[in-house]
Protein backbone atom coordinates (compact mmCIF):
# COMPACT_ATOMS: atom_id res chain seq x y z
CA UNK A 1 0.00 0.00 0.00
CA UNK A 2 2.91 2.34 0.79
CA UNK A 3 4.24 1.87 -2.76
CA UNK A 4 0.80 2.64 -4.21
CA UNK A 5 0.48 5.78 -2.04
CA UNK A 6 3.91 7.02 -3.13
CA UNK A 7 3.06 6.32 -6.76
CA UNK A 8 -0.29 8.13 -6.56
CA UNK A 9 1.27 11.11 -4.79
CA UNK A 10 3.87 11.41 -7.57
CA UNK A 11 1.08 11.25 -10.15
CA UNK A 12 -0.90 14.00 -8.41
CA UNK A 13 1.98 16.42 -7.98
CA UNK A 14 3.51 15.97 -11.43
CA UNK A 15 0.53 17.44 -13.30
CA UNK A 16 0.82 21.20 -13.63
CA UNK A 17 -2.95 21.71 -13.95
CA UNK A 18 -3.44 20.26 -10.46
CA UNK A 19 -1.15 22.94 -9.02
CA UNK A 20 -3.07 25.65 -10.88
CA UNK A 21 -6.33 24.34 -9.42
CA UNK A 22 -4.81 24.07 -5.93
CA UNK A 23 -3.63 27.68 -6.14
CA UNK A 24 -7.03 28.96 -7.25
CA UNK A 25 -8.66 26.83 -4.54
CA UNK A 26 -6.48 28.44 -1.87
CA UNK A 27 -6.35 31.96 -3.30
CA UNK A 28 -10.06 32.53 -3.89
CA UNK A 29 -11.26 32.44 -0.24
CA UNK A 30 -8.15 34.28 0.95
CA UNK A 31 -8.57 37.14 -1.50
CA UNK A 32 -12.26 37.50 -0.66
CA UNK A 33 -11.66 37.45 3.12
CA UNK A 34 -8.74 39.89 2.96
CA UNK A 35 -10.67 42.30 0.71
CA UNK A 36 -13.85 42.19 2.76
CA UNK A 37 -12.12 42.61 6.13
CA UNK A 38 -9.94 45.41 4.74
CA UNK A 39 -12.77 47.30 3.07
CA UNK A 40 -15.79 46.81 5.35
CA UNK A 41 -16.78 49.22 8.10
CA UNK A 42 -14.85 48.70 11.31
CA UNK A 43 -17.95 47.98 13.36
CA UNK A 44 -18.93 45.19 10.95
CA UNK A 45 -15.75 43.24 11.66
CA UNK A 46 -16.64 40.25 13.81
CA UNK A 47 -15.29 36.76 14.30
CA UNK A 48 -18.57 35.23 13.17
CA UNK A 49 -18.48 37.25 9.92
CA UNK A 50 -14.96 36.01 9.15
CA UNK A 51 -16.00 32.42 9.82
CA UNK A 52 -19.04 32.91 7.59
CA UNK A 53 -16.87 34.32 4.80
CA UNK A 54 -14.32 31.51 5.07
CA UNK A 55 -16.86 28.71 5.14
CA UNK A 56 -18.95 30.33 2.40
CA UNK A 57 -16.10 30.87 -0.04
CA UNK A 58 -14.69 27.44 0.79
CA UNK A 59 -17.55 25.94 -1.22
CA UNK A 60 -15.57 26.98 -4.30
CA UNK A 61 -12.41 25.45 -2.81
CA UNK A 62 -14.27 22.23 -2.15
CA UNK A 63 -15.60 22.15 -5.72
CA UNK A 64 -12.10 22.61 -7.15
CA UNK A 65 -10.82 19.84 -4.88
CA UNK A 66 -13.66 17.70 -6.21
CA UNK A 67 -12.55 18.49 -9.77
CA UNK A 68 -9.01 17.38 -8.91
CA UNK A 69 -10.41 14.28 -7.22
CA UNK A 70 -12.41 13.40 -10.35
CA UNK A 71 -9.55 14.03 -12.75
CA UNK A 72 -7.12 11.80 -10.81
CA UNK A 73 -9.12 8.84 -12.08
CA UNK A 74 -10.85 10.14 -15.24
CA UNK A 75 -7.48 11.35 -16.53
CA UNK A 76 -6.17 7.81 -16.20
CA UNK A 77 -9.09 6.43 -18.19
CA UNK A 78 -8.86 9.23 -20.76
CA UNK A 79 -5.14 8.87 -21.46
CA UNK A 80 -5.11 5.08 -21.09
CA UNK A 81 -2.61 5.22 -18.22
CA UNK A 82 -5.07 3.19 -16.13
CA UNK A 83 -3.85 0.14 -18.05
CA UNK A 84 -0.25 0.94 -17.18
CA UNK A 85 -1.32 1.48 -13.57
CA UNK A 86 -3.26 -1.79 -13.28
CA UNK A 87 -0.54 -3.71 -15.13
CA UNK A 88 1.96 -2.42 -12.54
CA UNK A 89 -0.40 -3.08 -9.61
CA UNK A 90 -2.82 -5.86 -10.58
CA UNK A 91 -4.64 -5.70 -7.24
CA UNK A 92 -6.86 -2.84 -8.31
CA UNK A 93 -8.36 -2.12 -4.90
CA UNK A 94 -4.91 -1.17 -3.63
CA UNK A 95 -4.66 1.48 -6.36
CA UNK A 96 -8.22 2.73 -5.87
CA UNK A 97 -7.89 3.02 -2.08
CA UNK A 98 -4.49 4.74 -2.41
CA UNK A 99 -6.02 7.29 -4.79
CA UNK A 100 -8.89 7.91 -2.36
CA UNK A 101 -6.49 8.40 0.56
CA UNK A 102 -4.30 10.82 -1.39
CA UNK A 103 -7.39 12.74 -2.57
CA UNK A 104 -8.82 13.08 0.94
CA UNK A 105 -5.52 13.97 2.64
CA UNK A 106 -4.72 16.59 0.02
CA UNK A 107 -8.16 18.12 0.43
CA UNK A 108 -7.82 18.20 4.23
CA UNK A 109 -4.43 19.91 3.96
CA UNK A 110 -5.60 22.46 1.37
CA UNK A 111 -8.80 23.40 3.23
CA UNK A 112 -6.96 23.59 6.57
CA UNK A 113 -4.50 25.91 4.89
CA UNK A 114 -7.37 28.04 3.57
CA UNK A 115 -9.15 28.47 6.89
CA UNK A 116 -5.90 28.72 8.87
CA UNK A 117 -4.23 31.34 6.69
CA UNK A 118 -7.59 33.07 6.12
CA UNK A 119 -8.31 33.37 9.83
CA UNK A 120 -4.83 34.65 10.70
CA UNK A 121 -4.84 37.13 7.81
CA UNK A 122 -8.29 38.40 8.83
CA UNK A 123 -7.22 38.48 12.45
CA UNK A 124 -4.10 40.51 11.63
CA UNK A 125 -6.07 43.02 9.53
CA UNK A 126 -8.78 43.27 12.21
CA UNK A 127 -6.18 43.92 14.93
CA UNK A 128 -4.55 46.56 12.74
CA UNK A 129 -7.97 48.21 12.51
CA UNK A 130 -8.37 47.98 16.31
CA UNK A 131 -11.16 45.40 16.12
CA UNK A 132 -9.58 42.11 17.28
CA UNK A 133 -11.61 38.99 16.46
CA UNK A 134 -12.12 35.71 18.36
CA UNK A 135 -13.65 32.33 17.49
CA UNK A 136 -15.87 32.86 20.50
CA UNK A 137 -17.52 35.80 18.69
CA UNK A 138 -19.52 33.13 16.90
CA UNK A 139 -22.16 31.14 18.75
CA UNK A 140 -20.91 27.87 17.27
CA UNK A 141 -17.22 28.70 17.89
CA UNK A 142 -14.70 26.89 15.74
CA UNK A 143 -17.11 24.03 14.88
CA UNK A 144 -18.04 25.37 11.40
CA UNK A 145 -14.35 25.71 10.56
CA UNK A 146 -13.70 22.08 11.41
CA UNK A 147 -16.91 21.23 9.58
CA UNK A 148 -15.91 22.98 6.37
CA UNK A 149 -12.54 21.17 6.35
CA UNK A 150 -14.35 17.85 6.57
CA UNK A 151 -16.85 19.06 3.94
CA UNK A 152 -14.03 19.87 1.47
CA UNK A 153 -12.52 16.41 1.98
CA UNK A 154 -15.89 14.73 1.36
CA UNK A 155 -16.53 16.78 -1.81
CA UNK A 156 -13.07 15.78 -3.06
CA UNK A 157 -13.99 12.14 -2.40
CA UNK A 158 -17.36 12.70 -4.13
CA UNK A 159 -15.52 13.98 -7.22
CA UNK A 160 -13.30 10.92 -7.14
CA UNK A 161 -16.29 8.60 -6.74
CA UNK A 162 -18.13 10.25 -9.66
CA UNK A 163 -14.93 9.93 -11.70
CA UNK A 164 -14.79 6.20 -10.96
CA UNK A 165 -18.40 5.78 -12.02
CA UNK A 166 -18.45 8.04 -15.07
CA UNK A 167 -14.82 7.61 -16.27
CA UNK A 168 -14.98 10.77 -18.39
CA UNK A 169 -13.49 14.07 -17.16
CA UNK A 170 -15.99 16.63 -18.53
CA UNK A 171 -18.99 14.45 -17.69
CA UNK A 172 -17.80 13.74 -14.13
CA UNK A 173 -17.05 17.42 -13.48
CA UNK A 174 -20.39 18.44 -14.98
CA UNK A 175 -22.27 16.08 -12.66
CA UNK A 176 -20.17 17.23 -9.69
CA UNK A 177 -21.05 20.88 -10.33
CA UNK A 178 -24.60 20.45 -11.59
CA UNK A 179 -25.62 18.18 -8.75
CA UNK A 180 -25.59 20.86 -6.03
CA UNK A 181 -26.34 23.81 -8.32
CA UNK A 182 -29.11 22.37 -10.44
CA UNK A 183 -30.25 18.96 -9.27
CA UNK A 184 -30.55 19.69 -5.56
CA UNK A 185 -31.64 23.23 -6.36
CA UNK A 186 -34.56 22.05 -8.48
CA UNK A 187 -35.52 19.33 -6.02
CA UNK A 188 -35.32 21.92 -3.26
CA UNK A 189 -37.63 24.36 -5.09
CA UNK A 190 -40.09 21.59 -5.91
CA UNK A 191 -40.12 20.40 -2.33
CA UNK A 192 -40.43 23.93 -1.08
CA UNK A 193 -43.43 24.70 -3.29
CA UNK A 194 -44.98 21.42 -2.21
CA UNK A 195 -44.54 22.57 1.37
CA UNK A 196 -42.33 19.63 2.34
CA UNK A 197 -39.74 21.47 4.44
CA UNK A 198 -38.64 18.36 6.23
CA UNK A 199 -37.38 16.75 3.03
CA UNK A 200 -34.64 19.37 2.67
CA UNK A 201 -32.39 17.70 5.14
CA UNK A 202 -32.29 14.58 2.96
CA UNK A 203 -30.54 16.44 0.14
CA UNK A 204 -26.96 15.13 0.48
CA UNK A 205 -25.02 18.19 -0.69
CA UNK A 206 -27.22 20.60 1.31
CA UNK A 207 -26.59 18.35 4.27
CA UNK A 208 -22.86 18.63 3.64
CA UNK A 209 -23.08 22.42 3.50
CA UNK A 210 -24.59 22.32 6.99
CA UNK A 211 -21.25 21.07 8.34
CA UNK A 212 -19.68 24.48 7.78
CA UNK A 213 -22.77 26.63 8.37
CA UNK A 214 -22.00 29.01 11.28
CA UNK A 215 -25.71 29.75 11.77
CA UNK A 216 -26.83 26.13 11.75
CA UNK A 217 -29.97 25.70 13.84
CA UNK A 218 -30.26 29.41 14.59
CA UNK A 219 -33.00 30.10 12.05
CA UNK A 220 -35.00 27.01 12.86
CA UNK A 221 -33.95 25.25 9.61
CA UNK A 222 -34.59 21.54 9.36
CA UNK A 223 -31.33 19.59 9.63
CA UNK A 224 -29.83 16.53 11.27
CA UNK A 225 -27.37 18.77 13.11
CA UNK A 226 -23.77 19.49 12.16
CA UNK A 227 -22.17 16.10 12.80
CA UNK A 228 -25.08 13.92 11.67
CA UNK A 229 -25.49 15.99 8.45
CA UNK A 230 -21.81 15.46 7.75
CA UNK A 231 -22.06 11.75 8.39
CA UNK A 232 -25.08 11.54 6.07
CA UNK A 233 -23.24 13.39 3.25
CA UNK A 234 -20.19 11.19 3.83
CA UNK A 235 -22.38 8.09 3.74
CA UNK A 236 -23.89 9.02 0.35
CA UNK A 237 -20.40 9.85 -0.99
CA UNK A 238 -18.93 6.60 0.34
CA UNK A 239 -21.70 4.61 -1.38
CA UNK A 240 -20.98 6.37 -4.71
CA UNK A 241 -17.21 5.85 -4.39
CA UNK A 242 -17.76 2.27 -3.24
CA UNK A 243 -19.95 1.40 -6.24
CA UNK A 244 -17.43 3.13 -8.51
CA UNK A 245 -14.56 1.13 -7.03
CA UNK A 246 -16.52 -2.12 -7.21
CA UNK A 247 -17.32 -1.56 -10.90
CA UNK A 248 -13.77 -0.47 -11.73
CA UNK A 249 -12.48 -3.65 -10.13
CA UNK A 250 -14.80 -5.81 -12.20
CA UNK A 251 -14.86 -4.01 -15.54
CA UNK A 252 -12.26 -4.28 -18.29
CA UNK A 253 -9.62 -1.58 -17.82
Amino acid at each position, binding site marked *: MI*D*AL*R*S*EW*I*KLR*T*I*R*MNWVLFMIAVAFPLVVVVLVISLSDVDEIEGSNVIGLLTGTSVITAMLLGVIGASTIT*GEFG*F*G*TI*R*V*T*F*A*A*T*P*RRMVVLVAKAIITVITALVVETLVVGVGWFAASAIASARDMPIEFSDSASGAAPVVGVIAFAAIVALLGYGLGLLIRNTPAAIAVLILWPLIAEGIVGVVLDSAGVDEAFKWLPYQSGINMGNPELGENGDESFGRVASGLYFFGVTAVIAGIGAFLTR*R*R*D*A
Partner: protein
Amino acid sequence: MITVDGLTKRFGRKVAVDGLGFTVRSGQVTGFLGPNGSGKSTTMRCMLCLDRADAGVALFDGRAYGQIRSPLHEIGVLLDAGYVHPGRTGRNHLRWLAASNGLPRTRVDEVLETVGLTTVGSKRLRTYSLGMRQRLGLAGVLLGDPHTVILDEPANGLDPEGIRWIRDVLVHLAEQDRTVLVSSHLLSEMALMASELVVIGQGRLIEQCSVAEFIDRHSERWVRVQSPTVARLREVLQAEGAEVAPVDESTIEVRGVTTAEAGELAARHGVVLHELSTQTGSLEDAFLRATASAQEYTAGPL
Protein backbone atom coordinates in the same frame (compact mmCIF):
# COMPACT_ATOMS: atom_id res chain seq x y z
CA MET B 1 7.57 -19.49 -19.80
CA ILE B 2 4.11 -18.26 -20.67
CA THR B 3 1.28 -20.75 -21.16
CA VAL B 4 -2.01 -19.62 -22.64
CA ASP B 5 -4.80 -22.18 -22.68
CA GLY B 6 -8.37 -21.95 -23.95
CA LEU B 7 -8.41 -18.16 -23.65
CA THR B 8 -11.78 -16.73 -24.70
CA LYS B 9 -13.03 -13.14 -24.64
CA ARG B 10 -16.36 -11.89 -25.89
CA PHE B 11 -17.49 -8.30 -26.37
CA GLY B 12 -21.27 -8.64 -26.49
CA ARG B 13 -21.97 -11.09 -29.30
CA LYS B 14 -18.59 -10.71 -30.93
CA VAL B 15 -16.01 -13.32 -29.97
CA ALA B 16 -12.68 -11.46 -30.00
CA VAL B 17 -10.54 -14.34 -28.73
CA ASP B 18 -11.79 -17.87 -29.24
CA GLY B 19 -10.25 -20.73 -27.25
CA LEU B 20 -6.73 -19.52 -27.95
CA GLY B 21 -3.79 -21.57 -26.69
CA PHE B 22 -0.03 -21.26 -27.19
CA THR B 23 3.23 -21.31 -25.27
CA VAL B 24 6.08 -18.79 -25.18
CA ARG B 25 9.50 -20.15 -24.24
CA SER B 26 12.48 -18.29 -22.87
CA GLY B 27 15.64 -17.66 -24.85
CA GLN B 28 13.94 -16.67 -28.09
CA VAL B 29 11.80 -13.87 -29.44
CA THR B 30 8.29 -15.14 -30.09
CA GLY B 31 6.32 -13.14 -32.61
CA PHE B 32 2.58 -12.82 -32.06
CA LEU B 33 1.25 -12.32 -35.53
CA GLY B 34 -2.19 -11.65 -36.93
CA PRO B 35 -4.05 -9.27 -39.21
CA ASN B 36 -5.53 -6.07 -37.77
CA GLY B 37 -8.49 -6.91 -35.56
CA SER B 38 -7.46 -10.54 -35.11
CA GLY B 39 -7.43 -10.25 -31.32
CA LYS B 40 -3.73 -9.78 -30.55
CA SER B 41 -4.17 -6.79 -28.24
CA THR B 42 -7.25 -8.28 -26.57
CA THR B 43 -5.28 -11.48 -25.93
CA MET B 44 -2.47 -9.50 -24.35
CA ARG B 45 -4.88 -7.49 -22.18
CA CYS B 46 -6.52 -10.74 -21.02
CA MET B 47 -3.10 -12.25 -20.28
CA LEU B 48 -2.35 -9.24 -18.06
CA CYS B 49 -5.76 -9.41 -16.33
CA LEU B 50 -6.64 -5.96 -17.68
CA ASP B 51 -9.60 -7.44 -19.56
CA ARG B 52 -11.50 -10.21 -17.83
CA ALA B 53 -11.33 -13.38 -19.92
CA ASP B 54 -14.62 -15.27 -20.26
CA ALA B 55 -12.75 -18.57 -20.19
CA GLY B 56 -9.24 -19.96 -20.20
CA VAL B 57 -6.03 -19.02 -18.45
CA ALA B 58 -2.71 -17.34 -19.11
CA LEU B 59 0.03 -18.43 -16.73
CA PHE B 60 3.45 -16.92 -16.19
CA ASP B 61 5.67 -19.67 -14.79
CA GLY B 62 2.51 -21.23 -13.42
CA ARG B 63 0.90 -18.10 -11.96
CA ALA B 64 -1.83 -15.83 -13.27
CA TYR B 65 -0.67 -12.23 -13.73
CA GLY B 66 -3.19 -10.96 -11.19
CA GLN B 67 -1.56 -13.05 -8.48
CA ILE B 68 1.82 -11.34 -8.84
CA ARG B 69 2.32 -8.62 -6.23
CA SER B 70 5.00 -6.45 -7.87
CA PRO B 71 4.93 -7.63 -11.48
CA LEU B 72 7.43 -5.09 -12.83
CA HIS B 73 10.22 -7.13 -11.22
CA GLU B 74 9.19 -10.14 -13.27
CA ILE B 75 7.23 -9.03 -16.32
CA GLY B 76 7.80 -5.88 -18.36
CA VAL B 77 4.83 -4.72 -20.43
CA LEU B 78 4.39 -2.21 -23.24
CA LEU B 79 0.83 -2.20 -24.52
CA ASP B 80 0.66 1.20 -26.19
CA ALA B 81 3.30 3.90 -26.10
CA GLY B 82 0.46 6.44 -26.15
CA TYR B 83 -0.68 5.46 -22.64
CA VAL B 84 0.98 8.48 -20.99
CA HIS B 85 -0.26 11.78 -19.54
CA PRO B 86 0.92 14.45 -22.01
CA GLY B 87 1.45 16.99 -19.22
CA ARG B 88 3.92 14.83 -17.31
CA THR B 89 7.63 14.66 -18.06
CA GLY B 90 9.18 11.42 -19.25
CA ARG B 91 11.17 11.08 -16.06
CA ASN B 92 8.12 11.63 -13.83
CA HIS B 93 6.14 9.06 -15.83
CA LEU B 94 8.81 6.49 -15.04
CA ARG B 95 9.03 7.68 -11.43
CA TRP B 96 5.44 6.89 -10.55
CA LEU B 97 5.74 3.59 -12.37
CA ALA B 98 8.92 2.73 -10.42
CA ALA B 99 7.39 3.83 -7.11
CA SER B 100 4.35 1.59 -7.63
CA ASN B 101 6.63 -1.46 -7.45
CA GLY B 102 9.08 -0.15 -4.87
CA LEU B 103 11.87 0.43 -7.40
CA PRO B 104 14.46 3.11 -6.53
CA ARG B 105 14.56 6.48 -8.32
CA THR B 106 18.07 5.75 -9.50
CA ARG B 107 16.66 2.98 -11.66
CA VAL B 108 14.64 5.59 -13.61
CA ASP B 109 17.78 7.42 -14.67
CA GLU B 110 19.45 4.14 -15.59
CA VAL B 111 16.69 3.05 -17.97
CA LEU B 112 16.39 6.55 -19.42
CA GLU B 113 20.04 6.26 -20.33
CA THR B 114 19.57 2.75 -21.72
CA VAL B 115 16.93 3.97 -24.17
CA GLY B 116 18.77 7.19 -24.97
CA LEU B 117 16.25 9.64 -23.48
CA THR B 118 18.37 11.15 -20.68
CA THR B 119 18.54 14.58 -22.29
CA VAL B 120 14.77 14.79 -22.85
CA GLY B 121 13.72 13.19 -19.54
CA SER B 122 12.61 16.58 -18.18
CA LYS B 123 10.51 17.46 -21.21
CA ARG B 124 6.75 17.04 -21.17
CA LEU B 125 5.44 13.99 -23.00
CA ARG B 126 3.29 16.07 -25.35
CA THR B 127 6.53 17.16 -27.00
CA TYR B 128 7.66 13.55 -27.58
CA SER B 129 7.49 12.02 -31.04
CA LEU B 130 5.97 8.57 -31.42
CA GLY B 131 9.46 7.10 -31.64
CA MET B 132 10.46 8.79 -28.38
CA ARG B 133 7.29 7.47 -26.70
CA GLN B 134 8.11 3.95 -27.87
CA ARG B 135 11.55 4.34 -26.33
CA LEU B 136 9.99 5.61 -23.10
CA GLY B 137 7.62 2.64 -23.15
CA LEU B 138 10.59 0.32 -23.49
CA ALA B 139 12.28 2.12 -20.60
CA GLY B 140 9.18 1.28 -18.53
CA VAL B 141 9.49 -2.35 -19.60
CA LEU B 142 13.12 -2.50 -18.49
CA LEU B 143 12.55 -0.71 -15.13
CA GLY B 144 12.32 -3.84 -12.99
CA ASP B 145 14.85 -5.86 -15.01
CA PRO B 146 12.14 -8.46 -15.77
CA HIS B 147 12.72 -12.00 -17.06
CA THR B 148 9.61 -11.78 -19.24
CA VAL B 149 8.81 -9.03 -21.72
CA ILE B 150 5.52 -8.44 -23.55
CA LEU B 151 5.24 -5.77 -26.22
CA ASP B 152 2.24 -4.91 -28.38
CA GLU B 153 3.28 -3.58 -31.80
CA PRO B 154 6.43 -1.85 -30.51
CA ALA B 155 7.60 -1.00 -34.00
CA ASN B 156 4.38 0.80 -34.93
CA GLY B 157 5.18 4.25 -36.26
CA LEU B 158 8.93 3.86 -35.92
CA ASP B 159 11.40 4.80 -38.62
CA PRO B 160 13.73 2.08 -39.99
CA GLU B 161 16.44 3.03 -37.51
CA GLY B 162 13.98 2.76 -34.62
CA ILE B 163 12.70 -0.61 -35.82
CA ARG B 164 16.23 -1.88 -36.01
CA TRP B 165 16.94 -0.61 -32.51
CA ILE B 166 13.85 -2.34 -31.07
CA ARG B 167 14.85 -5.53 -32.85
CA ASP B 168 18.37 -5.40 -31.45
CA VAL B 169 17.05 -4.80 -27.92
CA LEU B 170 14.60 -7.72 -28.14
CA VAL B 171 17.14 -10.11 -29.62
CA HIS B 172 19.59 -9.05 -26.90
CA LEU B 173 16.98 -9.74 -24.19
CA ALA B 174 16.25 -13.18 -25.66
CA GLU B 175 19.94 -13.98 -25.74
CA GLN B 176 19.96 -13.44 -21.97
CA ASP B 177 17.44 -16.31 -21.77
CA ARG B 178 14.49 -14.02 -21.14
CA THR B 179 11.01 -14.72 -22.44
CA VAL B 180 10.02 -12.23 -25.14
CA LEU B 181 6.56 -11.99 -26.72
CA VAL B 182 6.08 -9.27 -29.31
CA SER B 183 3.06 -8.68 -31.51
CA SER B 184 2.86 -7.28 -35.00
CA HIS B 185 0.57 -7.35 -38.00
CA LEU B 186 3.56 -7.29 -40.38
CA LEU B 187 5.30 -10.58 -41.05
CA SER B 188 8.23 -8.85 -42.74
CA GLU B 189 8.88 -6.91 -39.55
CA MET B 190 8.39 -10.03 -37.45
CA ALA B 191 10.73 -12.13 -39.57
CA LEU B 192 13.53 -9.74 -38.66
CA MET B 193 12.95 -10.03 -34.90
CA ALA B 194 11.35 -13.35 -34.08
CA SER B 195 12.48 -16.93 -34.38
CA GLU B 196 9.17 -18.44 -33.24
CA LEU B 197 5.73 -17.42 -34.44
CA VAL B 198 2.25 -17.61 -32.96
CA VAL B 199 -0.11 -16.77 -35.81
CA ILE B 200 -3.75 -15.98 -35.08
CA GLY B 201 -6.75 -14.94 -37.13
CA GLN B 202 -10.23 -14.00 -35.89
CA GLY B 203 -9.15 -14.83 -32.36
CA ARG B 204 -8.15 -18.42 -33.16
CA LEU B 205 -4.73 -19.99 -33.41
CA ILE B 206 -3.71 -20.59 -37.02
CA GLU B 207 -0.37 -22.05 -36.14
CA GLN B 208 2.62 -21.96 -33.85
CA CYS B 209 5.94 -22.80 -35.47
CA SER B 210 9.33 -21.33 -36.31
CA VAL B 211 9.51 -18.42 -38.77
CA ALA B 212 11.39 -20.61 -41.27
CA GLU B 213 8.74 -23.35 -41.09
CA PHE B 214 5.95 -20.86 -41.53
CA ILE B 215 7.47 -19.29 -44.60
CA ASP B 216 8.34 -22.68 -46.00
CA ARG B 217 4.83 -23.96 -45.54
CA HIS B 218 2.92 -20.99 -46.80
CA SER B 219 5.04 -19.23 -49.36
CA GLU B 220 4.77 -20.09 -53.03
CA ARG B 221 7.78 -21.29 -55.06
CA TRP B 222 8.24 -21.32 -58.81
CA VAL B 223 11.00 -21.57 -61.42
CA ARG B 224 12.10 -18.71 -63.59
CA VAL B 225 13.69 -19.61 -66.89
CA GLN B 226 15.30 -17.37 -69.52
CA SER B 227 16.24 -18.81 -72.89
CA PRO B 228 16.73 -17.56 -76.48
CA THR B 229 14.46 -20.45 -77.60
CA VAL B 230 11.88 -20.17 -74.88
CA ALA B 231 8.99 -21.31 -77.11
CA ARG B 232 10.55 -24.76 -77.55
CA LEU B 233 11.15 -25.12 -73.83
CA ARG B 234 7.58 -24.05 -73.13
CA GLU B 235 6.23 -26.89 -75.27
CA VAL B 236 8.45 -29.41 -73.54
CA LEU B 237 7.47 -28.20 -70.05
CA GLN B 238 3.76 -28.16 -70.85
CA ALA B 239 4.05 -31.70 -72.24
CA GLU B 240 5.38 -32.67 -68.78
CA GLY B 241 2.31 -31.11 -67.15
CA ALA B 242 3.97 -27.95 -65.83
CA GLU B 243 2.11 -24.67 -65.71
CA VAL B 244 3.88 -21.98 -67.73
CA ALA B 245 3.34 -18.25 -67.67
CA PRO B 246 5.22 -15.91 -70.03
CA VAL B 247 7.04 -12.90 -68.55
CA ASP B 248 8.53 -11.49 -71.76
CA GLU B 249 9.64 -12.96 -75.16
CA SER B 250 12.62 -14.77 -73.63
CA THR B 251 11.47 -15.42 -70.04
CA ILE B 252 8.86 -17.71 -68.49
CA GLU B 253 7.75 -18.64 -64.99
CA VAL B 254 7.07 -22.31 -64.39
CA ARG B 255 5.03 -23.90 -61.64
CA GLY B 256 4.74 -27.64 -61.02
CA VAL B 257 8.37 -28.61 -61.61
CA THR B 258 11.54 -28.14 -59.59
CA THR B 259 14.56 -26.18 -60.82
CA ALA B 260 16.44 -29.46 -61.29
CA GLU B 261 13.64 -31.00 -63.37
CA ALA B 262 13.38 -27.91 -65.56
CA GLY B 263 17.18 -27.90 -66.09
CA GLU B 264 17.27 -31.59 -66.99
CA LEU B 265 14.39 -31.21 -69.45
CA ALA B 266 16.16 -28.30 -71.14
CA ALA B 267 19.41 -30.28 -71.42
CA ARG B 268 17.60 -33.33 -72.81
CA HIS B 269 16.01 -31.24 -75.56
CA GLY B 270 19.09 -29.15 -76.28
CA VAL B 271 17.61 -25.85 -75.14
CA VAL B 272 20.15 -23.15 -74.23
CA LEU B 273 19.42 -21.50 -70.85
CA HIS B 274 20.43 -17.98 -69.80
CA GLU B 275 18.76 -18.15 -66.40
CA LEU B 276 17.35 -20.90 -64.23
CA SER B 277 16.33 -19.88 -60.72
CA THR B 278 13.94 -20.69 -57.87
CA GLN B 279 11.63 -17.84 -56.95
CA THR B 280 9.94 -17.50 -53.57
CA GLY B 281 6.88 -15.42 -52.80
CA SER B 282 7.25 -12.55 -50.36
CA LEU B 283 6.68 -12.94 -46.62
CA GLU B 284 3.62 -10.76 -46.94
CA ASP B 285 2.20 -13.20 -49.51
CA ALA B 286 2.83 -16.12 -47.16
CA PHE B 287 1.16 -14.32 -44.28
CA LEU B 288 -1.81 -13.23 -46.37
CA ARG B 289 -2.25 -16.75 -47.70
CA ALA B 290 -2.14 -18.25 -44.19
CA THR B 291 -4.62 -15.78 -42.80
CA ALA B 292 -6.77 -15.32 -45.92
CA SER B 293 -9.81 -16.96 -44.38
CA ALA B 294 -9.36 -15.07 -41.14
CA GLN B 295 -9.14 -11.46 -42.30
CA GLU B 296 -11.38 -9.17 -40.30
CA TYR B 297 -11.56 -6.43 -42.91
CA THR B 298 -11.07 -7.11 -46.60
CA ALA B 299 -10.85 -4.25 -49.05
CA GLY B 300 -13.05 -4.24 -52.15
CA PRO B 301 -11.49 -4.14 -55.64
CA LEU B 302 -10.01 -0.77 -56.65
